[in-house]
């Protein structure tokens, strides 16, 4: 029901949509309803010492991570699996947690050897409340209202979040700021930019669940491109349109493009529109207000009228994954990067199936377009309830440290793949694969309490590591960052979803030819007066 889930659905809402969800951050807007006792101001937040970044060096990837944000890649699972946490975090204590779950709910701890084993390794009786991702909003609100907070929980970017944090959650500076985090080396392995989003009220209030600089991919069915004899790297709008026309055959139920928003985001990149906001001499300009955006919408309307998009592309229930697997659409733009996994599985029954990724060129095709870097910065942040005993906070942090064990470590293997022979099997190259049991058991959603930075790795498909690494390297050569990432705007948290939905509805009517492109100006005007200008002001104060 909720559009404010942290996952992929929210990307589909549109740019700002995801930024609301994911770029939680500091400063401003402790609006109405009781001001935070410690001011959530630019000045106080600027003084915060962010946790030191100490990258984990125990494992050498096949292809290295880069300063631009390309993730480390592994062709096979490392043979050496070093321990990253020497001691059990706990001593039989109980910790209550709460997070959302995207997978079918796993069996309870007494019938789940993986979970029992996890508790054993943690030395902690971890009791987890799991909430279907679509319902987290309501559960969060009632949990807060009932003052029934678990010790550690996934936070939502609700309105007046700073005041809520101030009242009910622990300020973590004493534990994590600067070098203090070195007590928790796996948390110190999370790069600095992800921590910005945890700063409120002049302090650190959470642990980020990081995502990479390339958090979305433009997926294509290379087999269909090859069969049609067209290049999988069309340069510029004209080539893209021509390619799409070749790929489209309505009688055979084949269209080039799927859901409209993916196409929109691709065209926005192509036209060089801002990644959310753009700083122009101390002033912020939103994507919606730019000529590039207008051009992208006009281009999108062209593509729609050319009949190369799936006729139901505007449906909210667009079954993108199914249609992509079936080849009904050849291109699935702007989808979560973990979709790589899903699509490989969906295509497994088709011997011709070949997955690839499409880069974005500028509109005239002369060069690569600038990538929307860090579109999703953090999936969410994890907050710790106020405790009377600082020892309990340390215990929880030790647990989160264990759960953030980096790829390749012994803890990581157990956390993701469980017990060998029960939850997973290992092939000759050392690649683990979950068994049916493992698939059911490991669904415990601990990855939304704490997680290591992502790496590129596809078990049993060593060449995929090279494909993805090369793609990330290519698209990140030139990238645009959203300057508001990590900043908190109360207007954004409370109003943006509705206001942006209204704006997007208007855009859809333009694209479908029901309204002239000139109405876009009115939409922008409404957007500005109902939220845009207020958000701008709140963000600008923090730059």
């Amino acid at each position, binding site marked *: *029901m*909720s*559009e*404010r889930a942290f996952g992929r659905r929210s990307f589909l809402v549109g740019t700002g949509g995801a930024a609301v969800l994911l770029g939680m951050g500091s400063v401003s807007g402790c609006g*109405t*309803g*009781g001001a935070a006792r410690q001011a959530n101001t630019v000045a106080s937040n600027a003084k915060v010492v962010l946790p030191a970044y100490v990258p984990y060096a125990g494992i050498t990837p096949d292809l290295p991570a880069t300063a631009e944000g390309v993730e480390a890649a592994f062709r096979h699972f490392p043979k050496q699996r070093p321990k990253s946490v020497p001691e059990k975090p706990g001593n039989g204590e109980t910790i209550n947690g709460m997070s959302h779950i995207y997978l079918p709910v796993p069996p309870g701890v007494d019938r789940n050897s993986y979970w029992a084993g996890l508790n054993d390794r943690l030395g902690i009786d971890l009791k987890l409340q799991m909430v279907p991702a679509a319902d987290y909003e309501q559960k969060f*609100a*009632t949990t*807060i*209202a009932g*003052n029934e907070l678990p010790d550690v929980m996934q936070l939502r970017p*609700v*309105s*007046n979040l700073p*005041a*809520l944090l101030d*009242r*009910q959650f622990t300020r973590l500076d004493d534990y994590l700021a600067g070098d203090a985090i070195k007590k928790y080396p796996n948390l110190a392995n999370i790069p600095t930019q992800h921590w910005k989003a945890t700063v409120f009220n002049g302090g650190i209030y959470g642990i980020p669940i990081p995502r990479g600089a390339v958090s979305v991919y433009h997926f294509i069915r290379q087999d269909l491109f090859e069969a049609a004899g067209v290049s999988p790297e069309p340069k510029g709008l004209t080539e893209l349109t021509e390619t799409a026309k070749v790929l489209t055959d*309505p*009688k055979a*139920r084949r*269209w080039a493009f799927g859901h409209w928003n993916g196409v929109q985001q691709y065209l926005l990149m192509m036209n060089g529109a801002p990644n959310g906001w753009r700083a122009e001499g101390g002033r912020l300009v939103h994507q919606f207000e730019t000529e590039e955006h207008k051009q992208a919408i006009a281009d999108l309307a062209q593509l729609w009228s050319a009949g190369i998009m*799936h*006729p*139901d592309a*505007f*449906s*909210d*229930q667009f*079954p993108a994954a199914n249609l992509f697997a079936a080849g*009904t659409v050849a291109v699935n733009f702007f989808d979560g990067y973990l979709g790589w996994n899903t699509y490989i599985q969906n295509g497994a029954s088709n011997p011709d199936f070949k997955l690839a990724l499409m880069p974005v060129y500028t509109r005239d095709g002369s060069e690569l377009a600038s990538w929307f870097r860090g579109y999703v910065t953090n999936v969410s942040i994890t907050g710790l309830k106020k405790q009377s005993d600082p020892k309990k906070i340390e215990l929880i942090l030790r647990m989160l440290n264990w759960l953030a064990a980096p790829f390749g470590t012994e803890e990581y293997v157990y956390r993701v793949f469980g017990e060998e022979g029960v939850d997973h099997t290992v092939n000759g190259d050392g690649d683990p694969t979950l068994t049916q049991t493992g698939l059911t058991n490991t669904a415990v959603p601990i990855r939304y309490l704490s997680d290591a930075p992502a790496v590129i790795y596809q078990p049993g498909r060593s060449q995929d590591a090279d494909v993805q690494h090369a793609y990330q390297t290519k698209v990140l050569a030139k990238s645009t960052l959203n300057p508001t990432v990590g900043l908190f705007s109360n207007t954004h*948290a*409370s*109003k943006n*979803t*509705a206001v942006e*939905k*209204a704006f997007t*509805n*208007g855009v*859809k*009517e333009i694209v*479908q030819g*029901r309204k002239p492109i000139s109405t876009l100006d009115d939409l922008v005007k409404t957007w500005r007066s109902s939220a845009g200008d207020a958000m701008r002001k709140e963000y600008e104060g923090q730059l």
Partner: protein
Amino acid sequence: MAMIVDNRPTTGGTAAVPRASRRFQRLRQDKLLVALGVPGATALILFQYLPLLGNIIAFQDYEPYLGIAEAPFVGLQNFSFLWDGNPAFLTAVANTLILTVVQTIFVFPVPLLLALLLNSLAGERLKRLLQSILYLPHFLSWVIVVAIFQQMLGNAGMLNTFLVQNDLPMIEIIGVPELFKALLTSQVIWKDAGWGTIIFLAALAQINQEQYEASAVDGANGRQRLWHITLPSLKGIIILLLILRLGDSLSVGFEQIILQQGPVGAEASEVLDTWVYNYGIVGGDWGMATAAGLVKSVVGVLIVIGANKLAHMFGEQGVYQK
């Protein structure tokens, strides 16, 4: 002995007895009857009425972490949508009213007609089989119903695939703003018409069959029996359901609509509930969302009182007696 007499005068007792003691006497008389109702009444009061006190947040700037005790009062600010002339709100109200009228006219009678049709079948077994098929769609969630309609009638659905493959023009049904209300209405009929027959079938089962027999002996034909026996017997329950439906006029299929707003836009699809969801609940504006709920309830009460009065004027019982 507790006397249970239907036509006992409500102003019984002698004038000499004081009111309070008369009431006490009646309670003593009816104590067993009241006791039967107490568990149900308790549940209603505990879980429906006491939480209603929470509606006080309609007058507050409420935040879950503050609680009702600490949230500041803001007067009628949360109700401002009623008079500030927000065009999105007015569109939502207009769409809601249109849909209510359309659905009352086109949806409400369908289960009744279907029930009469089923009832007129001679074969009891066939009747039951048909009925158990027709009520199935009720058990599908709206997500699935919407998906099924898209599969069948979507622009790339079964119907249009057939048309396109045979060089016939496509028929756009889903995603067309002008047809949206018709689409919603047909989905509601598909999903709930069969289910709705149940209550009428139960009412039909209560009709004394001897009446039919007697009238047949008197020479009445099928249509006359329908008009003079069946429909009059159903009249009470029909009016009851209609009044309750009207009381709920301002609610029209929240989930169904929010799932399908995307392709048609707000102008064609926004209704009161989706508007409150989009502009209140999603943004965490509990005060406004609660205020809107209160307004809906009050309007519902007024409609029910009005409709009930109307029913009385026509000599019907309505939901409650005078």
